[in-house]
């Protein structure tokens, strides 16, 4: 190849690897996805679109949890609590006080972050398992409060009648069509979720590459050394906890308007575990990892509601014997969680760093105690000399 061709190709490659291109790709894919789904799924489109929205919403939650679990290396088992706080805050503000979705979501994020700080200040001094246990206790406390505070949350009866978000474009000059409308169709919902997810991705990406992100990584790798560099461990961890809780509250507040009702069951301990699974399986400490993990696991769980063998039987009509056999495999929707568990075990065994791993995280999991460890190395070196 001639020199200009090579430089053209390499600059093209740089553009493809660059962030501007990634964003372009994101918006193109996000815009096209509902139409693609309609073309591919046909009749079951509404199922596909609902799943798509859930992927988007839970991806926001996963990005938030990733800040504490992936960036800082702290295990938080109570993330569902922050989502629940966000959901009720948005529901109550919109229904009882006539807040717009945008104002309610903003207040919810602040409210979630506040509880992140309240939980973080006394507990972040704890290490490892103890910290995880306290976060678990927190989520139980939040759920119990929501279930028993009948006057405010209607308790176990659930909280129905939350209005849909409204979009108001009248403040933008020159917009001539549909100034004000309520988001109702599944298309509109997806675009709302995709836009908020874009914002969350942008913030998560900037955080990861900032001074703050570097400080979190330092704390994760060696807290004593980080403090010797002048990093205020408590402050940075509390900040991570607050931002993370804000993400959780935002996800909860979208779920509240999407379902138009809140049930405490949606935010029980298993929610915390699922979101944790999305993060771990996708790849801790990256921006795209939690997104990939959420997309895979949410889609899988939704798909497995129907007997996978029977679904396979339908496309196997060209081999009647096999199709007949597959169609008779017994199945219960709850069996999907067994399959889910098997998948997680296989992932942890063969790819503990996740689908889209962080360079440093992958090394932490695979190389420690081997070549990378100075204590093991210096002895060996001495023997060499």
């Amino acid at each position, binding site marked *: 190849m001639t020199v200009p061709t090579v430089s053209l190709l390499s600059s093209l490659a740089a553009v493809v690897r660059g962030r501007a291109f990634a964003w372009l790709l994101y918006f193109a894919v996000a815009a096209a996805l509902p139409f693609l789904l309609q073309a591919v799924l046909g009749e079951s489109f509404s199922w596909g679109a609902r799943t798509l929205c859930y992927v988007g919403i839970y991806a926001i939650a996963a990005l938030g949890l990733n800040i504490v679990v992936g960036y800082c290396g702290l295990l938080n088992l109570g993330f569902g609590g922050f989502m629940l706080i966000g959901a009720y805050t948005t529901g109550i503000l919109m229904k009882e006080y006539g807040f717009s979705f945008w104002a309610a979501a903003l207040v919810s994020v602040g409210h979630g972050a506040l509880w992140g700080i309240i939980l973080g200040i006394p507990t972040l001094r704890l290490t490892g398992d103890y910290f995880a246990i306290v976060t678990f206790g927190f989520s139980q406390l939040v759920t119990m409060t929501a279930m028993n505070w009948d006057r405010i949350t209607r308790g176990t009866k659930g909280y129905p009648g939350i209005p849909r978000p409204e979009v108001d474009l009248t403040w933008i000059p020159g917009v001539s069509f549909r100034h004000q409308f309520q988001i109702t169709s599944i298309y509109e919902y997806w675009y709302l979720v995709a836009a908020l997810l874009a914002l969350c991705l942008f913030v998560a990406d900037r955080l990861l590459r900032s*001074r703050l992100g*570097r*400080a979190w*990584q*330092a704390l994760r*790798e*060696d807290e*004593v*050394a*980080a*403090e*010797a*560099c*002048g*990093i*205020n*461990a*408590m402050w940075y961890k509390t900040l991570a906890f607050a931002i993370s809780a804000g993400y959780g509250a935002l996800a909860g507040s979208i779920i509240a308007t999407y379902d138009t009702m809140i049930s405490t069951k949606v935010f029980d301990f298993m929610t915390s575990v699922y979101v944790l699974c999305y993060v771990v399986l996708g790849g801790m400490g990256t921006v795209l990892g939690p997104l990939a993990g959420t997309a895979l696991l949410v889609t899988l769980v939704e798909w497995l509601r129907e007997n996978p063998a029977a679904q396979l039987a339908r496309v196997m009509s060209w081999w009647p014997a096999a199709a007949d056999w597959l169609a008779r495999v017994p199945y219960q929707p709850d069996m999907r969680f067994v399959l889910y568990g098997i998948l997680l075990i296989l992932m942890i065994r063969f790819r503990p760093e996740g689908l889209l791993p962080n*360079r*440093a*995280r992958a*090394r*932490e999991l695979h*190389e*420690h105690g081997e*070549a*990378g*460890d*100075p*204590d093991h*190395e*210096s*002895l060996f*070196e*001495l023997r060499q*000399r």
Partner: protein
Amino acid sequence: MTNPPVLLRLDAVEAGYGSLRILKGISFEVCAGEIVTLIGSNGAGKTTVLNAICGVVPPRRGTVTMDGHDITRLQPHEIASRGVVHVPEGRKLFPDMTVAENLEMGAHLRRDRAGIRADMEKMYNLFPILGERRHAPAGALSGGEQQMCAIARGLMARPRIMMFDEPSLGLAPKLVEQIFGIIRAINDEGTTVLLVEQNAHMALQLAHRGYVIATGEITLSGSGSELLGNEMVKRLYLGEA
């Protein structure tokens, strides 16, 4: 000759872990511009002294003053921000960050981007091997390279006093000499040094003054050459009959 001002002073410092009392009232001082060494056998409390100064093991009694200010009860990061930099035993690098990222972490508290960049170049001149390996993860460096990286990371903070914990540990003699040469160079540029060493012979040759620590107490002090000539030091720490 007027004495240089005292930079760091420990006054009857007691510290330990749990019910274990390691330091039983340690007092000493480091003057600005000096190299002071603490020597002693394994388990004498040398590392605990440094941990007590930098706040990792907060003293139970006594005071630590830096430049006349009491820093006894401050958090480790606050002590670091006062120019007290610790190069811990076993290097304690961020193993999955690159060499360059480790150096940047050292300058975490500084805001002068141009100055940080200039200092990084300075480090690469002082330690050419770090310059060559600036994009390698710190965990992949050899023991000697890691020690240099830890020293360079400490220097990036522009410390007023630099505390070294066993910098010679696990290194080949040639490398030890190189590291000690670097410590002297750092001191020549005006940084005060507190050096904790088991390699008493080399430490006392390098230091202006030294203290001998045994079972949590200072048992002897003097100039480097005085201690080198002391019969007890010779017998106990230099291995001479």
